[in-house]
């Protein structure tokens, strides 16, 4: 893998809010077809780090490279141009709109006259949902009327519909039942095999051990270290998260 150009390189990223260093000189990378877990306590800075990649925050300093080239990402529109898709922990859905409007928000399908084509969009949503979550039936209700799992599938469908090359998943299974969690892990496997790189933010070690190839652990805004998941135990990861201690002999790349 090391001979390949990384899909994403985040180099020396820093951002502070009102004097607090939320992310302090952190570097991580991601290769095509790889899942990198970002671990850490609440407030460790993992979501903040990833929001600089998705364009929600502008970094104070640091460099983002996509396929080896320096990328300028100032807002979510920029990130979308680099085929970066994000599933936010909050899901970022407009509750008053239906599934199709949410899925295509900002990228509506339009008719030849330039009007939004609701019927075409609903038709597309029916197709993708048939694959992703066949139980999904509420196509014309506002998403506020959906269950947690259904809302999650709308957010996931939105991320995978538009040919993502880089996928960011922020706690994708936090609100899900066992059945839907299984659906997410199958989806991650499939996306991996299609060569998509995935950043998986989680505080669940079992999720990370199960789904990820590598894990980067953060504590208090700093990177503790990056390890190959197959070289470490659950306890090693716990030690990194809680004590900020790097396990010996398990140096990542």
């Amino acid at each position, binding site marked *: 893998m090391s001979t390949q150009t990384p899909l994403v390189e985040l180099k020396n990223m820093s951002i502070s809010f009102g004097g607090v260093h939320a992310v302090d000189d952190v570097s991580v990378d991601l290769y095509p077809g790889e899942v990198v877990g970002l671990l850490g306590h609440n407030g460790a800075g993992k979501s903040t780090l990833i929001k600089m990649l998705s364009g*929600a925050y502008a970094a104070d300093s640091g460099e983002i490279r996509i396929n080896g080239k320096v990328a300028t990402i100032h807002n979510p529109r920029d990130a979308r141009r680099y085929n970066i898709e994000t599933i936010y922990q909050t899901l970022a859905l407009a*509750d008053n709109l239906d599934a199709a409007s949410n899925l295509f*928000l900002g990228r509506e399908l339009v008719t030849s006259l330039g009007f939004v084509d609701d019927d075409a969009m609903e038709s597309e949503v029916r197709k993708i949902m048939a694959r992703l979550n066949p139980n999904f039936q509420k196509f014309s209700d506002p998403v506020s*009327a959906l269950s947690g799992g259904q809302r999650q599938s709308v957010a996931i469908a939105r991320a995978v519909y538009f040919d993502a090359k880089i996928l960011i998943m922020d706690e994708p299974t936090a609100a899900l039942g066992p059945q839907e969690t299984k659906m997410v892990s199958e989806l991650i496997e499939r996306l991996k095999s299609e060569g998509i790189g995935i950043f998986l933010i989680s505080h669940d070690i079992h999720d990370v051990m199960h789904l990820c190839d590598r894990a980067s652990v953060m504590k208090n805004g700093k990177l503790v270290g990056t390890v190959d998941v197959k070289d470490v135990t659950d306890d090693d990861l716990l030690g990194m998260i809680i004590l900020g201690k790097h396990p010996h002999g398990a140096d990542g790349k």
Partner: protein
Amino acid sequence: MQPDQNTAQNFFSKLGIDLRLLGMIGALAVLCIMFDLITGGRFLTPRNLFNLSVQTASVAVMATGMVFVIVTRNIDLSVGSLLGFIGMAAAAIQVHVLPDIVGLGHWSIWIIAAVFAVLMGAVIGAMQGWIIGYLTVPAFIVTLGGFLVYRGAMWWITQGQTVAPLDPSFRLMGGGADGTLGETLSWIFGLVASIAAVGLILASRRRKASHGFTVKPVWAEGILIALAAGLILGYVWIMNSYKIAKGALPRIAEARGVEMVDGLVLNHGVAIPVIILLGVTIVMTLVSTRTRFGRYVYATGGNPEAAELSGINTRLLTVKVFSLMGALTGISAIIASARLGAVDVGLGTLDELRVIAAAVIGGTALSGGFGTIYGAVIGALIMQTLQSGMASVGVDAPLQSIVVGMVLVFAVYIDIVYRRKTGA
């Protein structure tokens, strides 16, 4: 739930008419019938309905814009003052400026004045939107400031003098005996509008069917078509039954190119401000349901953060929404000033509250994300019906305010209960 109630609900849901729309139409019908009974049949007359629809136009046009403002979790308190300011400025240029440039009574005066009014509104609105969106001053404060500024600026244009008389062609946009389509044109207009409405219903049905979605039953579609065409043609018929008064007859006959003979009967027809309102309603409905801009307005109101993360520039959106509100205020300024034929410094006073009330009675939620254009128009119609009705019954002005105020609060309470029940 009783079975017959269930059947009724099922009936209306098959028609695609929701309970809220039904409630508003019901309230309007109850008001009209009640006032008609109390006045002994003087309320539901062609003359009164003509005046009612003309009086509604100015507030209703602005209410369609206020829907977008409120849906995006903002408010605009400045529209009444802005209407006065624009009305005064447009009046001043057609009375004091343009006659010196193009000549008194020149045909282009009304066009220049009208375009000026709309542009002036759009620019001022955009400025307010920029302060709200980019400088992040709350809309309540910015437009409260605007409320004072424009009323003051209006005074400043002519040192408080009333500007009159407005250009005769300009005044047609205010309605009145001259400002109508006349009988023949009204019928043609009604037919074209009916055909367009039927065409839209059928086109939507075909589009849905082509994607394999379930469509309404044929009988439901038939009832909708009959309702749409019946409403349009019925209105035209009523307007075409409103006779022109004897005093105005020679003038109107000349304007319409009819020979003035004894026993000649001419009717009003559909008023021009009503045509303007209809046009605005159709365009704004299209914008709200069929354009990206409209979609972003509702998305931003529902979840501003999600909208921003979806790549929507919500700051620029705020500028656009307020600019649109300003342009619509410009249109209303034209209607209001043209109707009076003169502009004094009181023009538009308290209109901001009527406009907000119309939007809110029409189902626009102040918490953002919900509201329809047709709802706001019906809301304006309910407000005006209530006011005109009470005036014709002989209720004192102070009592009218008390009733309107209480109805507003009650209507919003009903809306909250409805939302809680339906979970929307």
